[in-house]
């Protein structure tokens, strides 16, 4: 890999890592979610410094050009990330449901009048696609 490319990519990756660290530091990104990004940044750095590793990897997976290996890895990484988000969304959905039920039951047990419907006019509602209520 030419030195010029190495310098440019290292600078960009370094910037990415700095942004991630800064997001974590400002508590905009939770620590447990940051490691995936930090790990991906670190592996980019590794592949820039040790281009022979990428070549060896290309050889191993049977790809023709190193770029294909790189793109393949990127897509794999993004797919894994999406799957991870789906899993987290599932957890969040269940937690929101449980909380909403608890809130409704708590209000009921305290005899509090339920507030008017939470949805304001013009507010788009997430369609649950629930046939039993259609």
């Amino acid at each position, binding site marked *: 890999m030419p030195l010029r490319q190495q310098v440019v990519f290292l600078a960009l990756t370094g910037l990415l890592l700095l942004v991630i660290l800064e997001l974590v530091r400002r508590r905009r990104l939770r620590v447990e979610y940051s490691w995936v990004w930090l790990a991906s940044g670190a592996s980019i750095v590794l592949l820039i410094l040790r281009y022979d590793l990428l070549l060896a990897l290309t050889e191993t997976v049977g790809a023709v050009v190193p770029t294909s290996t790189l793109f393949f890895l990127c897509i794999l990484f993004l797919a894994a990330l999406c799957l991870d988000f789906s899993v987290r969304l599932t957890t969040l959905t*269940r937690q*929101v*449901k449980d909380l*909403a*039920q608890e*809130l*409704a*039951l708590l*209000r*009921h047990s305290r005899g509090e009048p*339920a*507030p008017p*419907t*939470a*949805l304001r006019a013009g507010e788009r*509602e*997430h369609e*649950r*696609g*629930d*046939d*039993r*209520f*259609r």
Partner: protein
Amino acid sequence: MRTLIVIPCRDEARNLPDVVGELRSVRPEDDIAVVDDASRDGSAEVAARLGCDVVRLPLHLGYGAAVQAGIKLGQRGGYDVVVTFDGDGQHDPADVAPLVAAVAGGADLALGSRFQAPGAYQGGPLRIAGRRLFAALCGALTGLALDDPTSGLKALGPRAQALFASSRFPDRFPDADALVVAHRAGLLLTQRPARMRASRNVHSMHDGLRPFAYAANMVLSLLVAALGRARDLRE
């Protein structure tokens, strides 16, 4: 038997007075709780005026989560039986007694079945085909012989209440899959005749592609319920 009748509802303000009135005249001893799934038509106010217990969900969560909120209420209130009863007028209050009796007789869950009741409303060909499919899948996966597994009319004893109040309840599509989960958790299931009527609501399963999406989700959910890890079912 202390019985709580749970009516999950979304935008049923027009139907609630009749549904609740009919229930009251047939089942004067039972408590009635209306779980309002963030209706936009004042269903909760109507239910409160009718003297029902009203549990109002702050967000629209869907049928399954609304039913589950009602079951949680019943379980915490220490009811012997919780009956789930649709708010659109398709269930007949006279069918509640046999279900409650079945639970009193030792069943954990009693299901109202339209196929046991001659002359019950069956719905269009699509609905009939869907029910056949779910019943066949249900039977093939678990050996359960329930012929109307998508029925919303159920009576739950304490064990079924505990199961359905937990995270093991498939709250997104709680039909045949919930029964499979109950069966696999070792609960005793039974069915009784129910003279289903046509829903009073014009909009229903027949809108566009919804029925197909529902059927596809149901099949997947059934498979998940049937193939899920056994140790997740016992707690």
